[in-house]
Every structure is written in structure tokens, then in C-alpha cells.
């Protein structure tokens, strides 16, 4: 529970640190990408802190190279 709260607080902190700078300079595209990245990685971190089994990209890589015969 505490780890979830601290992750969300951290994400809010990052948002408040970077977003106003981008907003002032009127860089809409940058602000969008920043928000999308932050939101998705915050969700992933929260899921990890709740001990949800996340898919491991290395499994995917391993099965791929096994498939083509390494």
C-alpha cells in the first residue's frame, strides 16, 4: 500500500517538475509524449508494487530465438 502511494506521489512530483516547463514553451507534442510515457510507466510500477505478474520481455526474446533455432 505504502509503495503504491509513494509511486503515485513520485509520479505527481515528476509531472509538476516537467510539465509546466513544457506548457510555458508551448510544446504540445512534447507535453503529450511526456504525459503518455509517465502515465503508462506509473501504471506499470503500481502493478509491480501490487505484485501482479507482469509479462517479461526477456521471455518473449527467448522464445523468439528458440523458435528460429538458437
Amino acid at each position, binding site marked *: 500500500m505504502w509503495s503504491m502511494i509513494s509511486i503515485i506521489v513520485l509520479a505527481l512530483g515528476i509531472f509538476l517538475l516537467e510539465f509546466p516547463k513544457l506548457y510555458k514553451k508551448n510544446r504540445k507534442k512534447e507535453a503529450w509524449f511526456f504525459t503518455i510515457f509517465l502515465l503508462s*510507466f506509473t501504471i506499470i510500477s503500481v502493478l509491480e508494487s501490487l505484485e501482479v505478474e507482469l509479462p517479461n520481455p526477456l521471455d518473449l526474446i527467448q522464445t523468439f530465438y528458440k523458435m528460429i533455432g538458437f
Partner: protein
Amino acid sequence: MDNQTISPRQFMFLVILFSVGSSILIVPTPLAANAKQDAWISISISVAIGLLLVVLYNHIATLMKGQTFVQATIAVFGNWFGRVLLFFYLSFLYILASLVLRNIGDFMTTQIIPETPLQFTHILFLIVVIWGAYLGLEAIGRSSEMFMPWVVLLVFFFTITLSPQIKMENLQPVLGNGIVPVVDTSTFVIGTPLLEMVTFLMIIPYVKDGKTKKRAWILGTFIGGAILTLITLLCILILGSDLTALNTYPSYKLAQKINIAGFLEGLEIIIAIIWMITIFFKMVVLYYSTTVGIAQFLTMEDHRPLLLPLGMGMVVLSIIAYPDVAYFETFINETWFPFAITHGLIIPLIVWIGLLFKSKKQNKTQQEPS
């Protein structure tokens, strides 16, 4: 991104630190397990092949004409196919960075601070790396100049204090099991760190001075490879191939054996400073090139807003990457080499061919002014 440049010498130091970082911890074990007492021969073969690889990368860098790998690929293959290639290239860099982070985290938690949870080691280490990447390439290059003397000094210290314990018979018989396992094992060091050098295709456009930077890359790879060979050789000479193969971090085990005149012991933490410095530089180069690459991929003007969000993802990825030690060993021994060769050789080769065609076309249009 913002017209920062580094000198060829700083670039060479970065290449040295990059090739030593993290490999110094993980390389001796699998080498000694497969090639036994000839591990040092197989690592020399890999360094020789690595130098050829760097010649190819240097040629690609010349053809890129001051653009980074990401910009050049988009320019050659267009918005769609270029971006598909780059997606794989950037994901390789990102995964590599998180695995390097996991290496230092595992080393710290098993050897130095066993009671601190893995996440906190990763977060603390990554904060410093993000700070470095925020300050930009110039700060990274200058700090590499600051730390290089320390690394050289400590490697010398390491070698000299351990030299009384060398047992030459540990190397015999040379090529006792034939040449086949030696050549077979050389793929390991080609995979890590030599094919990982592809990262520097993102850095090299920011290096001043066209001619000496090629030499700097080759010389840096050579010196880094020589340090790796030296450490592996010391491991085998002192611990023997069997004990090297059994230890997870043989070079750290080696440092624990330092004993000056019977009264100065327990110096391994000073030696661990080399590991931390080199891994820090490897991380910072990887992290900087990944974020700059992603920023250019998305045609953003500045990479700095991406640093913190990507760091959050990297901490999670580095924790879920290896569920246990057995997974780590099979991944590093079996999957890493084909994975690295796809992204470190095949993708650069495709881009190289594209660049060759493009530069020929340009030459033709210059010759026939219409």
C-alpha cells in the same frame, strides 16, 4: 541534442569505461566454465573480432555525415520502415541498460549491502545516472576524464598486489582441450560488450574532429579489451579455472585475496570502486543514447522531459527481467549472443547498405548538374 560536443580523447575514455563496465563482473565466469585455462585466448580472439566490428561502425559513422544513427536511418529508409528498424534498435538499448542496472544491483545486494532491497539500490543508482544524462554529453565526457586516472590506478594496484600469488601452472596445458571450445566461447565476449558498442553510433556525431575520432574508437576498444583480458588472466592465474567458474563474481573474489605484507587486508571495497565507476559510465552512455534516440524517434526537440518517466519504467524492467539466477545464466549464455548480433550487426548492416546506396546516388547527382 543541444550542440554539446566532446573531444576524441573523452570519447576514447568513454569507450574504455563502457567496454569494461559490467563485463568485468560477469565475463570471467562463463569463459572459465567453457574454455577452462584457455579463457584468455578466447577473449583475445573476441577482441580482435571486435576491432573489425568497430571498423564497420566507424565506416557507418562516416556515411552518417554528422547525423545520429536514428536521424540517419529515418533519412535513408523513410518514416515507416526506418522507424520499424529503430524500434528494435532502441528497445535493444533500453533492455541492455536495464540489464546493466540489474547487474550492479545484484552485485551490491549479494556482496556488499545484503539487507537493502534491490529496488532501492536500483533507484539510487539510476538517480545519479539520470542526473548525468540531464547535464548532457559534455558533463559526461569531462567526468570520464576525471575518473579515468582512478580506474587506471586501481587496475595497476590490483595487478601489482596480486602478482605474488600468481601460479603459472594454472595456465597449463595451453589448448589442452583443443581449439574448438576456445573459439566457441569467444562468442560470449563478442556479445557483451563488443556488439553493445553499437550504442556509440548515437554518440559519435557529437565528437569533434573527424579523423582522430576513428582512431579513438579503435584504440578505446583495444584498451578496454586489454583490461578485460588482464582481469580474466589474473582470475585464472590465481584462482584457477575451476574456482573461477564456480564464483559468480570471480574478480571480486580475487580482490578479497589481496594481502599486503600480511597486515593489510579487506581492500576489496576499494576495488569495487572500479566496478561502480565503470558501470556508472556504461549506464550513463546507454541511458543518454536511449533517451536521445527516443526523442529523435518522436521528433522531439529536447530529450530531458523523457529522462524521469523512462527511468521509472527501467526500474520495473530491471526487477522483473531476471526472476532467478538460473534464468540469468541461461539468458546470458544462450540468448544474449543472437539477440546482440541481430541488433549490433544485422540492423547496422542494413542501414550501412542503405547509406551506401544513398551516398552513391548523391555523388551521381552532383556529377551531372541538371
